């Protein structure tokens, strides 16, 4: 049990007053960000990232990941009490959570949501604890061709498995990769796509783009909506908590199913949103009484929340082990790693043991502390919604600008942020997904470097991507996934031709 020993070491790193205080601070900020309209996990992490620039990497990641846990918890508060999903992955929670609140069972629903979030994350963290070191040890043998194959797999699975229209995903990804290529080419030293502008020489920083795309554009979108809200207040008593917790074992199948769905969708770039809906729908299908879903059934809160949190946490597994983020927020954390001077990838487990195991330990501790914190402070956070948006909006704008400027100390970046805000607003409204863009921005130059290093190694032959079993399998899988929609259609039409009778029935 080497992992267990290292985990204990991680806890030892964590138990200093400074880190515990930062953790608490991060959780409070995170819940705040999760509750406020127009802000969410990725925005919150992106905006608050500059706060961590002068910290050591371990404190920084602990605080940022706690902001993320906090945001995940916070999303549940607004969806249950106000029927406003703070995040897209909380939408499924409103189906049964809000009816419960209307029936005066808000406290019960909130306890269920927080507890199941906790269980979902815990399962995913355990998976990370034991799987991540194994994957990274395996990945240490990777050379540039293998890394390029894995990047290719990530990109292709986004295009092939995404639910948006394919050309929109392709536009988003190609644009992200192009923007990532602006500036100095790291292999040859040539300048690309700078058009003689000294500001573009540095390249476009990933975090500046993210702050604009997620922060500024989200405020513009929020302003379009009617911001009036009415909701229930709730105070959670120990008696309710006890009642929900003693009921918990009865729902073990739902919890387990949702955790597995969440972990799986979190590792593959599918995301928490798909996981929460899938968890909900499967719980409904397997239930003896599917009619009662949507009318305030506690299982309808357990299922999506467990899945969403399991997937949100599991998204960090590929980021830690391979340097490939499984979600938008993980991509931003990855951007943070680079700012703090760490090189994401399998070497992290060898070179920065304190950092990695401190982070993993903080996932355990952060979730426990977070659970206690939200259970005891729900009324305070629910009342944050009373603060008028006209006061919140300019503060978010200022925070975004500070964040964008602090990364490279460049005024140009503030303008860039504004530009990306408009792009994000328009893209979201015409349905061009932003996740592939983010992923392409953060992985673009690494993928290209890996490709070109592989080419230099092989003397310019593409055959290197099929030179051994491992890299060949990954590359073939990537190409299969890219054309998955076409393959799927061919298979199902062949299947129909072979079994005409059963297809008709």
């Amino acid at each position, binding site marked *: 049990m080497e992992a267990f020993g290292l985990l204990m070491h991680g806890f030892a790193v964590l138990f200093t007053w400074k880190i515990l205080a930062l953790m608490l601070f991060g959780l409070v900020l995170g819940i705040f960000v999760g509750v406020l309209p127009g802000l969410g996990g990725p925005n919150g992490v992106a905006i608050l990232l*500059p*706060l961590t*620039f*002068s910290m050591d990497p371990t404190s920084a990641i602990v605080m940022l990941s706690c902001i993320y846990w906090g945001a995940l918890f916070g999303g549940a508060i607004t969806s249950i009490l106000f029927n406003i999903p703070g995040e897209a992955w909380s939408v499924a929670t409103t189906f049964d959570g809000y009816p419960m609140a*209307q*029936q*005066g069972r808000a406290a019960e629903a909130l306890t269920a949501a927080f507890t199941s979030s906790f269980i979902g994350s815990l399962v995913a963290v355990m998976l990370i604890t034991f799987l991540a070191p194994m994957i990274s040890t395996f990945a240490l043998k990777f050379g540039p061709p293998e890394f390029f194959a894995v990047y290719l797999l990530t990109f292709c699975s986004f295009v092939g498995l995404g639910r948006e*229209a394919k050309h*929109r995903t*392709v*536009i988003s990804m*190609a*644009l992200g*990769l*192009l923007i990532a*290529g602006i500036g100095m080419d790291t*292999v*040859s030293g*040539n300048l*690309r796509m700078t*058009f003689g502008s000294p500001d573009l020489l540095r390249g476009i920083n990933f975090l500046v783009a993210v702050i604009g795309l997620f922060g*500024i554009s989200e*405020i*513009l979108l929020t*302003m*379009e909506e009617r*911001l*009036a*809200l*009415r*909701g*229930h*207040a709730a105070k959670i008593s120990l008696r309710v908590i006890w009642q929900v917790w003693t009921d918990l074992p009865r729902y073990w199948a739902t919890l387990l199913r949702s955790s597995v769905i969440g972990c799986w969708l979190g590792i593959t770039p599918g995301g928490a949103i798909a996981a929460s809906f899938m968890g909900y729908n499967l719980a409904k299908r397997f239930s003896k009484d599917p009619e009662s879903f949507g009318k305030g059934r506690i299982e309808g809160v357990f299922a999506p929340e467990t899945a969403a949190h399991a997937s949100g946490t599991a998204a960090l597994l590929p980021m830690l082990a391979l340097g490939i983020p499984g979600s938008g927020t993980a991509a931003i954390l990855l951007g943070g790693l680079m700012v703090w001077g760490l090189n994401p990838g399998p070497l992290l487990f060898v070179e920065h043991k304190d950092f990695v195991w401190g982070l993993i330990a903080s996932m355990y501790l952060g979730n426990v502390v977070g659970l206690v914190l939200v259970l005891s402070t729900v009324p305070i956070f*629910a009342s944050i*919604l009373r603060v*008028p*948006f006209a*006061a919140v909006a*300019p*503060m978010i*704008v*200022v925070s975004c*600008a*500070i964040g964008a*400027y*602090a990364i490279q100390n460049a*005024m140009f970046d*503030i*303008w860039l942020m*504004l530009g990306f*805000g408009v792009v994000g*607003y*328009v893209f979201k*409204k*015409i349905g061009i997904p932003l996740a592939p863009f983010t992923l392409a921005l953060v992985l673009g130059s690494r993928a290209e470097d890996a*490709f*070109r290093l*592989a080419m230099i190694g092989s*003397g*310019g032959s593409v055959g290197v991507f099929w030179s051994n079993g491992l890299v060949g399998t990954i590359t073939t899988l990537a190409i299969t996934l890219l054309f998955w929609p076409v393959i799927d259609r061919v298979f199902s039409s062949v299947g129909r031709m072979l079994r005409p009778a059963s297809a008709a029935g």
Partner: protein
Amino acid sequence: MSNTDLEIVVEDPTAPDDASPSVVSRRTVEIVVSLLLLALAAVLAYDNWQTGIEWDSTGPQPGYFPFYLSVILGGASLYGMVTALLSNDARTETFVTRAQLRRVMLVFVPTALFCLATQFLGIYVASFVLISGFMRLVGKIAWWKSLVTAVVFTAIMFITFDVAFDVIMPKGPLERALGR
């Protein structure tokens, strides 16, 4: 459904009217965005073509990848434009209504002005003006509340970034006069 424990109520008096007329259809915006992306793809492809898109003995030249990415971007945009032109749903679908656009501009214009002010006055003065002005003029919140909020927020930012964490921020004449 009982509403007895409905405790938190926030009104939004300036909410956009649902019946407000459409300014522009989703289809038009999709076509314009596709055209812009197509133009961008053409410019980038030309630039990379000049950098070199050949495949020499050590693999691709620097312009190789971006060139073909531009081609892919252009192709996908063209496809998007054609589907938008042929689709009937997007023609009737509203991109933004007049009331919505008004509200969006209420945030966007002050944000742009704030960026401009940051360039000349420094970020702290600009934030103070943005927060107090926005709360008062857009949010119709009392003057004293707006001013107090702006002062407190700006002060917290200044102490956090300038004093405690030493993060450099754009500064202007006021900071220079105070010797910071």
